[in-house]
C-alpha cells in the first residue's frame, strides 16, 4: 500500500481519537528513535537514521483490536521501509478467547513453540543494518478455553523469523506454518498437559508431541517436567538414539522458611525446529550484570545437556544471598564443556544498599577458560526523592592464550519517577576490538568506551538521550540472546504513551 495512504490514515485516526474514546477505549504508544553515528569499522559512516513504531489498540466491551506500524528512514534507500507489521483482533467471553492476526503464545515452557516480544527494544541485525521491533510473533489465529479444571488451546499460523528484516517479502520472513493443539487438566494439586504440533516448511512436514506434568508435592516441593519429540519418521516414543529429535526438561523446587532452591535438568538433541520458532529454556543463568550478561552461553539446540541449580536465603535484615552452580556439555563436532559458579550478596543498610557478586566460569565453545568476574553495585538514598548509584565490574579470562581484562564503571543519579542520568566507562584489552583485521598479525591494545545516558519523564512521555561510545556484544533479555551493535554517536529515543 502506498506510504501516503498510511500517513492519511494516521492523521485521521489521531484527529478523531478523542471522539472514538466515547465508543470504547483507545490506548497505545509511539516509540521513536533517532541515531546519528557509526558502527565502528562499518561503512557508511555518520549515518543519520530514524525508526518509529506506532501501536494503537482499541477496546470496546469484549473486543480488542490493535495495529502496529513501523517505519525506518535511512540514507541507504534500499533499507527503508514503512510497514503495517502487525494487526490483531481479540474477542474474550468469560473463559473463552479468540485471536486473529498477530499472536504471542507459548506451548509448555517453549520447547515446541514460543512467540514473544521484548517490549521497548529495537532490534538491528549486524548483517542487514535495518532497525525493527524486537518480536517473533505468529500470524494466524488462536482459540482458547481456560476453565478451573481444564484448558484447551489451538494455534495455527506462520511464525516470524525476525532476523529477516521487513524489507523482505512476508513469505521469506515466515517460511514455516504451524498447527498446534495443547490441552491441560488439573487434578489433586497436579497439572497434566499434552500438546501436538505440525510444522510445514516448503516441502517438508514434521509432527511433534509434548507431554508435561507439574504440581505441588508434600514437604514444600514443587516440580515441572516436560518431554517433547518428533513423531513418525522412524523415531519411536521415548527414544534417545543419536540422530533422534527430542527435548527433556525437569525442574524441582524446594522452599522452607527463608530458604529457596531450584534445580533444573535439561537435555536437547537436534531440537531447533523449523526455521527456529521454538525457544526451550536455556541451561545457564540469565545475568543482569554487564560483564556476565555478555558472557552468557548461547544455547546449542543441536546437542546440549546439563543442570542448573540455584539457592537463595534471605535474612531478617532483608539481605539476601544467592548461589548458582551450572554445568553443561555440548556434543557437536567435539565435546565442549561449560561450568559456572556464581555468588551474590544483597545488603540494604539504612539509606544504602549494596550488591556484591563473584563469578567463575568457563565456556569451551567460545574458547574462554579461567573466566573470573566480580563487582559491586551501591545505591544511596538522598534528599527530596533523589538517589545516587555506583557500579563497578571487573572480569578476566583466557581465550586461546590471550589474557583479556574487561572493566565497567558507571555512576548515576536519579529523581524518583522523573529523571535519571549516568556516565558509563568501559575498558578492555580484548584483541577483538584492537585488531585491525587487515593484516595477518593481531594488533593488541586497550579500547575505551565513554558514554552518557539521560532519561527524563514528562507526563506520558519518556525521553532518553545517549551520547558517546557504547560497547556492543552478546546480550540476553527475556530468555532470548542476541547481538547488540557497537555504537559511536548520538541517539535520541522518545516513548509516548496514550
Amino acid at each position: 500500500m502506498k506510504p501516503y495512504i498510511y500517513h492519511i490514515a494516521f492523521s485521521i485516526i489521531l484527529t478523531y481519537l478523542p471522539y472514538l474514546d466515547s465508543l470504547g477505549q483507545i490506548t497505545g504508544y509511539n516509540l521513536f528513535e533517532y541515531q546519528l553515528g557509526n558502527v565502528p569499522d562499518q561503512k557508511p559512516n555518520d549515518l543519520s537514521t530514524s525508526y518509529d513504531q506506532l501501536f494503537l489498540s482499541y477496546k470496546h466491551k469484549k473486543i480488542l483490536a490493535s495495529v502496529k506500524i513501523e517505519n525506518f528512514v535511512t540514507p541507504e534507500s534500499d533499507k527503508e521501509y514503512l510497514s503495517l507489521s502487525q494487526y490483531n483482533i481479540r474477542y474474550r467471553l468469560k473463559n473463552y478467547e479468540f485471536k486473529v492476526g498477530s499472536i504471542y503464545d507459548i506451548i509448555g515452557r517453549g520447547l515446541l513453540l514460543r512467540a514473544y516480544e521484548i517490549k521497548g527494544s529495537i532490534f538491528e541485525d549486524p548483517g542487514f543494518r535495518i532497525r525493527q521491533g524486537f518480536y517473533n510473533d505468529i500470524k494466524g489465529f488462536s482459540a482458547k478455553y481456560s476453565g478451573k479444571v481444564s484448558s484447551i488451546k489451538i494455534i495455527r499460523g506462520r511464525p516470524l523469523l525476525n532476523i529477516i528484516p521487513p524489507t523482505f517479502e512476508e513469505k521469506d520472513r515466515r517460511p514455516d506454518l504451524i498447527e498446534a493443539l495443547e490441552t491441560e487438566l488439573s487434578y489433586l494439586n497436579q497439572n497434566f498437559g499434552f500438546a501436538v504440533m505440525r510444522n510445514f516448511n516448503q516441502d517438508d512436514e514434521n509432527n511433534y508431541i509434548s507431554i508435561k506434568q507439574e504440581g505441588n508435592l508434600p514437604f514444600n516441593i514443587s516440580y515441572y517436567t516436560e518431554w517433547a519429540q518428533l513423531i513418525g519418521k522412524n523415531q519411536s516414543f521415548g527414544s534417545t538414539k543419536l540422530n533422534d529429535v527430542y527435548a527433556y526438561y525437569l525442574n524441582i523446587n524446594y522452599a522452607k522458611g527463608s530458604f529457596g532452591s531450584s534445580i533444573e535438568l535439561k537435555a536437547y538433541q537436534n531440537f531447533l525446529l523449523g526455521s527456529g520458532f521454538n525457544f526451550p529454556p536455556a541451561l545457564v543463568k540469565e545475568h543482569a550484570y554487564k560483564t556476565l550478561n555478555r558472557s552468557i552461553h548461547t544455547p546449542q539446540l543441536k546437542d546440549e545437556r546439563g543442570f542448573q541449580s540455584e539457592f537463595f536465603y534471605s535474612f531478617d535484615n532483608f539481605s539476601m544471598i544467592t548461589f548458582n552452580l551450572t554445568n553443561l556439555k555440548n556434543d557437536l563436532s567435539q565435546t565442549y564443556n561449560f561450568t559456572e559458579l556464581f555468588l551474590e550478596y544483597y545488603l540494604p543498610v539504612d539509606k544504602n544498599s549494596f550488591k556484591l557478586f563473584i563469578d567463575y566460569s568457563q565456556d569451551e565453545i567460545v574458547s574462554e577458560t579461567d573466566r573470573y568476574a566480580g563487582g559491586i553495585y551501591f545505591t544511596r538514598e538522598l534528599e527530596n526523592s533523589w538517589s545516587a548509584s555506583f557500579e563497578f565490574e571487573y572480569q578476566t579470562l583466557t581465550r586461546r592464550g590471550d589474557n583479556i581484562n574487561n572493566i565497567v564503571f558507571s555512576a548515576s543519579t536519579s529523581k524518583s519517577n522523573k529523571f535519571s542520568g549516568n556516565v558509563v566507562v568501559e575498558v578492555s584489552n580484548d584483541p577483538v576490538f584492537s585488531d585491525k583485521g587487515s593484516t595477518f598479525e593481531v594488533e593488541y591494545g586497550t579500547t575505551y568506551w565513554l558514554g552518557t545516558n539521560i532519561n527524563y519523564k514528562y507526563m506520558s512521555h519518556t525521553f532518553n538521550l545517549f551520547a558517546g561510545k557504547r560497547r556492543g556484544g552478546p546480550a540476553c533479555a527475556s530468555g532470548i540472546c542476541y547481538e547488540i551493535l557497537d555504537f559511536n554517536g548520538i541517539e535520541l529515543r522518545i516513548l509516548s504513551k496514550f
Partner: protein
Amino acid sequence: MMRLIILIMIILVSNSVISQDFRDYRLKDIDNNMILLDDIKGKELTVIDFWATWCKPCISSIPKIENLYDLYKDKGVQFMGINIDSPRNISKVKPFVNAIGISYPVLYDSNQELMTEYNVFSIPTLLIANSQGEIIYTHEGFNPGDEKELAKKLDELLEK
C-alpha cells in the same frame, strides 16, 4: 514533513492518557491456580507490581512493597505481583517468592499480555488502580526512598 506532523500530533494526543481495565484478565498464580484478577482486586485500590527475578531494582523494591502491603491491606488496598520472567527463569520464581517472603498474590504473565495492555515497557513498574479497575497512577523504576512516595500516594488516593 508528514512524519514530523504525525509525531507532533501523537505527542499532543498522548497528553490525554486513557485508562485501561485489568479485571477481566486470567493469570496463573505460583501454585498453578488460574485466577481472575477481578476476584482478587482491592475494595478501594489495587496495586499492581510488574517484576522479574533477574531485575536488580525489582529485588530491592520487593521487601518495601511487602511492607506497604502490611500497612495498607486492612484499608481496602490489595497488592498483586505480576511476574514477567520468561521460561528460562520461571523455575526460580516460586522458591524466590517463598524465600523473600512475599505474602500478596504473585501471578505469571510470561506472555506479557497484561504488560502489553498497560503499555509497561520497563520493570519494575508499579500501577495503582481504583475500584473500577482504572489505572490512576504509574511509578516506573525503583530507588531507595520510593516507598515513602508510594505511601504518600496511597494515602492521597484513599482520601479521595
